[in-house]
């Protein structure tokens, strides 16, 4: 009974925040904005959702606030990279640093505590069939994103903007507008991911609680080639590897080995997928 329903549920829980954030990352990637600030945007979502839920007593308002706050936060990337043509990688890293500093700082000023804010009366998201509504939403989002990207007018334009912004511009499609939209939507999705983590997976806020999940989302975007279904598979792979890792500890594997497992599995998956691509599209031999 290694692969039981608990394992699946555990994998699904691990997957949801990563999937939501990675979908946002994929949209940005498609629009030609390299977004590695997912981690920071998620953390802002965590903090806002907990704060709002605490003061209003409503987890759903928390979710809403998280989406809005993370979207507002994502404006740093949009303005910096799109309008001011700054370097998206530097901005993303700065946003991750800023989110850690800012949420810790606010945790001290708002709640007067350090480290963790937790209270039994903090209301979390309800569970439906063992998962939060956001978990289902994440799956729906995959479908919507897939259809939008491949079939909808906006998706076509977004893909065009990402591939050749000046070509889009000459046809009257404003690349900046689409890039802004993609970044803001990724903000919303990361906000939801944060809310899922702080009000769904657990019901509390602790400093740096995203703990690298945003980076995994970045990797999932690459592994899934920025296609919604690909991203889903990548996140699923990661979720399963992590959940299986927890179980493997039970079988006596050292914690260090199970910690490393998801990364090794992901790397292996990357090898396999790129190897297949290399076989199907042989020798683009020119070094250039």
């Amino acid at each position, binding site marked *: 009974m290694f692969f039981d329903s608990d394992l699946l549920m555990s994998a699904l829980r*691990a997957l949801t925040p990563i999937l939501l954030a990675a979908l946002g990352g994929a949209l940005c990637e498609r629009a030609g904005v390299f977004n590695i600030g997912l981690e920071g945007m998620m953390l802002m979502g965590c903090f806002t959702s907990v704060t709002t839920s605490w003061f209003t007593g409503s987890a759903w308002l928390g979710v809403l606030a998280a989406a809005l706050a993370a979207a507002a936060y994502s404006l740093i990337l949009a303005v910096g990279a799109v309008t001011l043509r700054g370097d998206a990688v530097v901005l993303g890293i700065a946003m991750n640093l800023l989110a850690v500093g800012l949420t810790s700082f606010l945790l001290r000023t708002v709640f007067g505590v350090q*480290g963790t804010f937790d209270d039994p009366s903090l209301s979390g998201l309800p569970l439906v069939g063992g998962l939060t509504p956001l978990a289902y939403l994440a799956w729906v989002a995959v479908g919507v994103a897939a259809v939008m990207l491949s079939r909808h007018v906006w998706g076509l334009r977004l893909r065009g903007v990402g591939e050749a912004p000046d070509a889009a511009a000459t046809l009257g499609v404003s690349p900046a507008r689409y890039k802004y939209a993609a970044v803001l939507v990724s903000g919303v999705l990361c906000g939801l991911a944060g809310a899922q983590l702080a009000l769904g997976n*657990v019901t509390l806020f602790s400093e740096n609680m995203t*703990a690298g999940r945003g980076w995994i989302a970045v990797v999932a975007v690459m592994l899934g080639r920025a296609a919604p279904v690909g991203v889903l598979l990548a996140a699923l792979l990661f979720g399963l590897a992590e959940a299986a890792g927890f179980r493997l*500890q039970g079988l006596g594997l050292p914690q260090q080995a199970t*910690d490393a497992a998801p990364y090794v599995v992901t790397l292996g998956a990357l090898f396999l997928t790129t190897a297949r691509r290399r076989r199907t599209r042989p020798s683009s031999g020119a070094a250039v």
Partner: protein
Amino acid sequence: NAAAKNDASSGSAKSSGKSFTLVTPDAVGQNEFLKLAVTGVKAAAEQHDGSQKVYESTDTASQQQNVQAAVEAKPDVIVLVGFEFADLVAQQAKAHPKQQFLMIDACTTKTYKNVSCAVFREHEGVYLAGAEAGLLSRSGKVGAVDVLDTPQFRRYSDPFAAGAKKVAAKTQTSTRFVGGQSPFDDSARAKEQADSLLSKGYDQLMAAAAAGNYGVFEAAKAKGAFAYGVDVNQCPSAPGTVVDNVIKRTDVAVEKGIDTVLGGKAGTTVSYGLKEGGISLTGLEAGVGSSKCVIADHKDVLKKVEALRDQIVAGKLKVDDPAAS
């Protein structure tokens, strides 16, 4: 005014007394253990009509800088909490023989005239909690969730298993470690680890997952299982789920330690266990009734646990310490 931190030190009103500096290895935050240390040093300052400062570190680099800064400020006693400081204190104690150091929860390997230590025998308390778990478990499976697989944290899991087996020999035991990229903060991972035990039928969980404890409690609550907290009374965070807590009276150790040093008996190591009242269970203290702990409703269990405690205090029962190899 936020820019004036230690009223006692900046104001001249009470400056006649002694000065103490507490250096922590991590941010105090919600770390109950460190909070108690702060309480202890504040109480000592009050008692000796003196002043105190708290330097919070976050990593080895800041630990080093804070100890350096503390030494340069030359307070009467520098209090350091945690085994992270063993090397640093040894180095500084040699360099500054006039400076008094008080180490809590750890000690230098060599002894120094100016280093006093207070250590705890948490395993005794954890053992008793394990016994409660063994008595209360319906499935006959009790587990623990630790931050990391280190000897220090194994003190919270191995004796727990031993205690349970002592009262119910057939008990199955298992331990999970949070691990991951930030093991001390990752409540979501802690919750998943707890879930992986709960899904196997474990119904009593020792939670030694630092900030992740809240995750463990949530997991237990969701499955109707029970958990055990550490350091202080954590029952109010999840009433009906947290059975009991292994209390570690860091505040007492700090206060008494400072007294000892000021009293001229530096260079000693005091060990706090059940006997000295440095380690206890919430259930064994006064005020169990209002503690919101599940154990308050299990007087029979408490009776048996009290008997075990008396045996340990009397030295008739010895609990193995996983950190002593």
